[in-house]
């Protein structure tokens, strides 16, 4: 297990290195002078030159990259020319809002998707199955920002059940910042009014974000469950007279979960990208707004930093999913241990 983990970790770091190189080179070869844009047309040539030196833009490209890597290793992503603060500080402010959204979406995907898949497998080729199939197809073909708009129209404007935008209602003061996750901070501060309000604000964006993965998760769970149910050991359990419920929970669910989980992990990781779209609809103060602003100001450090963080998250989730899959499947576990 240790060796496999180590191999995967090295591979992930290699990919992350590749991504950083890719984005870095792209950011540098595309025309337009970031220093000039950051300072505006009124700045003198000396000021622009000074900023260019401060951003290492006057060095040759390979040297710039080495300098960039040296700082990244020290946890320094450089200075944002848009917010005039270190990029790391900006990320610390905006990332939790985005992550909170993504985690709640992931939870919804699992909490609704898996049961729906189980129900669909049970009622194979009847209406719950058809419902799961339609939902899966619609989920894949509808952009998350379109879901977001449909949901807002129905649940906020037409029915008036849920708030339209933001993370917290006006008039409520956010809890003392510990994690940056409003829900967790509210629980820590025992401020239940804020906690409920934050959850109500999370509901629609999280649902909009989860819908693309939800239907797929249900379909996968269904297919894998049906495959597992066709296995001889399930037949045997049935012959022993175990209740269908016990068979499903104790024997079928776990082996059926492993392949489902791999795809769900990919979907979950991809949510961080789609979160940008949903955030725009709900005016969510997360990474999306930061990156769009950074784009307008040609804020290279902010763009590269954000992209790196998203890539790192993506790789970390995939790594974690691979580990869980190995843990779920005893055959893989033994293989890994014996180093086959």
């Amino acid at each position: 297990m240790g060796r496999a983990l180590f191999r995967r970790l090295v591979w992930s770091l290699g990919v992350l290195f590749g991504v950083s190189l890719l984005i870095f080179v792209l950011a540098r070869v595309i025309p337009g002078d970031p220093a000039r844009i950051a300072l505006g047309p009124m700045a003198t040539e000396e000021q622009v030159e000074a900023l260019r030196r401060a951003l290492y833009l006057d060095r040759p490209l390979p040297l710039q990259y080495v300098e960039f890597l040296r700082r990244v290793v020290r946890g320094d992503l450089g200075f944002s020319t848009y917010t005039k603060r270190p990029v790391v500080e900006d990320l610390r402010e905006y990332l939790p809002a985005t992550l909170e959204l993504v985690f709640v979406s992931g939870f919804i995907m699992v909490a609704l998707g898996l049961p729906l898949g189980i129900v669909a497998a049970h009622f194979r080729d009847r209406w719950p199955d058809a419902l799961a199939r339609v939902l899966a197809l619609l989920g894949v073909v509808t952009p998350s920002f379109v879901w977001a708009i449909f949901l807002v129209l129905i649940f906020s404007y037409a029915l008036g059940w849920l708030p339209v935008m933001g993370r917290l209602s006006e008039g409520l003061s956010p809890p003392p910042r510990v994690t940056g996750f409003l829900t967790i901070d509210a629980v820590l501060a025992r401020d239940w009014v804020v906690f409920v309000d934050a959850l109500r604000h999370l509901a629609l964006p999280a649902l909009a974000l989860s819908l693309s993965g939800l239907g797929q998760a249900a379909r996968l769970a269904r297919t894998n469950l049906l495959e597992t149910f066709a296995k001889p050991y399930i037949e045997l359990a049935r012959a022993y007279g175990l209740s269908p419920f016990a068979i499903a929970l104790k024997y079928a669910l776990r082996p059926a979960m492993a392949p489902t989980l791999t795809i769900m992990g990919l979907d979950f990781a991809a949510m961080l990208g789609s979160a940008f779209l949903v955030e725009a609809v709900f005016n969510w103060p997360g990474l999306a707004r930061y990156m769009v602003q950074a784009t307008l100001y040609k804020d290279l450090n902010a763009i590269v930093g954000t992209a790196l963080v998203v890539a790192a998250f993506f790789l970390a989730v995939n790594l974690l999913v691979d580990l869980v899959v190995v843990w779920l499947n005893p055959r893989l576990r033994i293989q890994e241990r014996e180093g086959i």
Partner: protein
Amino acid sequence: MRRESLRRFWYHFGRNPLSLLGLSIVTLVVVGALGAPWIAPYPEHAGRFVNFAEAGQPPSLHHLLGTDTFGRDLFSRILFGYRISLALGVVVLGIAVPLGVTLGLWAGYIGGGIATWIMRLSDVFVAIPPLVLAMAVLGVAEPSLTNAMMALTLMWWPWYTRMIYNQVRSLRLEGYVVAAQIIGASATHIMFREILPNTLPNILTKAALDMGFVILIGASLSFLGLGVQPPTPDLGTMVAEGARYLPDLWWLAVFPGLAILFVVLGFNLLADGLRDALGEG
């Protein structure tokens, strides 16, 4: 022989109502987009047209899907928006597919140092969601249709390289490949005349599916303001602009959104039908 297999393909394809639905949707969109200047009730509304007297009208017989805040007919603009979406898909895949396939054939059949590096490079691309990488690229470039096309092309070729690479690795020891080698056929001949035809069903299916996804991601980019710029009627841009007038002018965001869903659904169903029918053939 070729005609026979085409007939069999049509037989299998035509038996599945969902495939036919997909084909109909795609045909409808393509005809609507190509014929937009003649079909659209108000073709002049595609650009910088202003008529405040008719601004913000709900759907009616006069304006099927309503008008926007400049008084432009939404249905006409959606038809013209499809032109951009399809152009994006065709250009991106038109470059990414031949490029990706050629690199995949090369890396899989000939191999060598550079090929290994190409495969490593594709690892990097595939590890990150395309939307995020495209956003990073457009973040540093000027947002425009051309740059969106470039960014998406850059994101898309590795998927084809990897698919073809894996297929070539399993096909290269097939009898007909070995036979061609023995009679002294050139590597180019073997790659493009012997191996490539056998990978075409997969390429076609994936390309049909990707047509929908390129359109979806292109619309997502312009929704964020990183793609096509107004007043060019792009579906993503239209949703973004319409979202500002929720809930009163709901049709401004809802119909372009549905239009995206419609075309992506069409290509999805078409790809499913192609996969099943080509698999049977």
